[in-house]
């Protein structure tokens, strides 16, 4: 989606405001949201890409108004309702009205909790060989999908160079579009700043993205 979440290269959001000695959580409920999020990801009912797409569907004014953890609460709730983890009535009363969830198969316990700390591994083994090699010039796809993509708007339809092959990974676009992992080779692609931002840009900069093979064509 080309929602407000795709912020790279935009202007007009005010100053960056680092805090001195920033607190881990600014409000007590924020930590609990993090705990909920980690728990739900552990349950494996949907993956992080589905969560990200739910964030993209937040309307622009809400996306900019809500804090990070407020967006999480919204997304977590919306996705759980959509997937049937619980229903509106349960949400209203704040307890289960139907016993165990019909869609869950795992349970996060104090014994298994270490698995909720470490990031999942999204690399997948497959038969295909990578289409591109380090040093290859590639052009990124032009796309304005209303579904999920991890190709940011500023790096579309642009010329770059493959600088690394990162393995074969779950393809977020397919996960969101039709629930399949459809793993794809992942590359780091480097772009000269002027290719992305025009000749007036600082000539010392380059931008790098991690791009899945379907985003790339040979020049």
């Amino acid at each position, binding site marked *: 989606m080309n929602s407000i*979440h*795709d*912020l*790279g*290269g935009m202007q007009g*959001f*005010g*100053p*960056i*405001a*680092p*805090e001195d000695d920033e607190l*881990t*959580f600014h*409000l007590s409920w924020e930590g609990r949201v*993090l*705990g*909920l999020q980690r*728990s*739900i990801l552990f349950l494996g009912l949907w993956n*992080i890409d589905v969560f990200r797409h739910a964030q993209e569907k937040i309307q622009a*004014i*809400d996306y900019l*108004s*809500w*804090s*990070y953890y*407020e967006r999480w*609460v919204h997304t977590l709730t919306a996705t759980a309702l959509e997937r049937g983890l619980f229903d509106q009535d349960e*949400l*209203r*009363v*704040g307890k289960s009205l139907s*016993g165990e*969830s019909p869609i869950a198969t795992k349970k*996060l316990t*104090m014994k298994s*909790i270490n698995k*909720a*700390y*470490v*990031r*999942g591994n*999204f*690399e997948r083994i497959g038969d295909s060989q990578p289409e591109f090699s380090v040093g290859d010039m590639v052009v990124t796809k032009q796309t304005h999908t209303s579904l999920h993509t*991890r190709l*940011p708007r*500023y*790096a579309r339809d642009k010329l770059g160079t493959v600088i690394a092959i*990162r393995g074969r990974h779950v393809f977020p676009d397919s996960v969101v579009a039709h629930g399949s992992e459809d793993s794809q080779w992942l590359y780091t692609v480097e772009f000269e700043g002027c290719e*992305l*931002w025009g000749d007036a*840009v600082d000539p010392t*900069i*380059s*931008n*790098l*993205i*991690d791009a*899945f093979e379907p985003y790339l064509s040979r020049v």
Partner: protein
Amino acid sequence: MSDSHHHDHAHSDVSTLTDIQKRVKALESILVDKGLVERDVIDQIIEHFENKVGPHVGARIVARAWVSPEFKKSLLADATNAINGELDFAEVGQHLIAVENSDELHNVVVCTLCSCYPWDVLGLPPVWYKSAPYRSRVVSEPRSVLEEFGLDLPQDTKIRIWDSTAETRYLVIPQRPKNTELMSEAELADLVTRDSMIGTSDVLTTADQVNT
């Protein structure tokens, strides 16, 4: 979260909403009630992210890379495996990528599409990292952003801006400060700030430490 509530509070990351507290409580109760999450799990996760992980983890990794050329080599080749291969580090997830600063090259990390961040090694991301101003600006005007963070790079230093667009995560290995030959690995780790591992600032010098 009702459609109407978003007009009631400021667009900072700090808000105090009874509504949202109730919502969070409800979500937690439902999950516990349905037997999906054991009662103490949420507290334990908070404890982990508040106290176990944090920039001190990344700082120890950077200090080790400074003192051990062998570790640095394997860190730059495959950071996850290098770290998980050292017995005194806690396990980190796939795929962590370490990128090294030099006199000629400075690295800075962002996630323009969401707020991907190497939690395993840096803990919770700061609010500014997740904010629209940082995510929008640093990709096209890194130098002015870094200046606001107090980092004045030489005009000919090349800047690479790494946008975390997939499930890879980036850790910047800042340059080891001069005149630190006599410091221990632990002392060196104390010089490594969170922001220096994101790329928005330099490490501390021993002079900084005296001043603070």
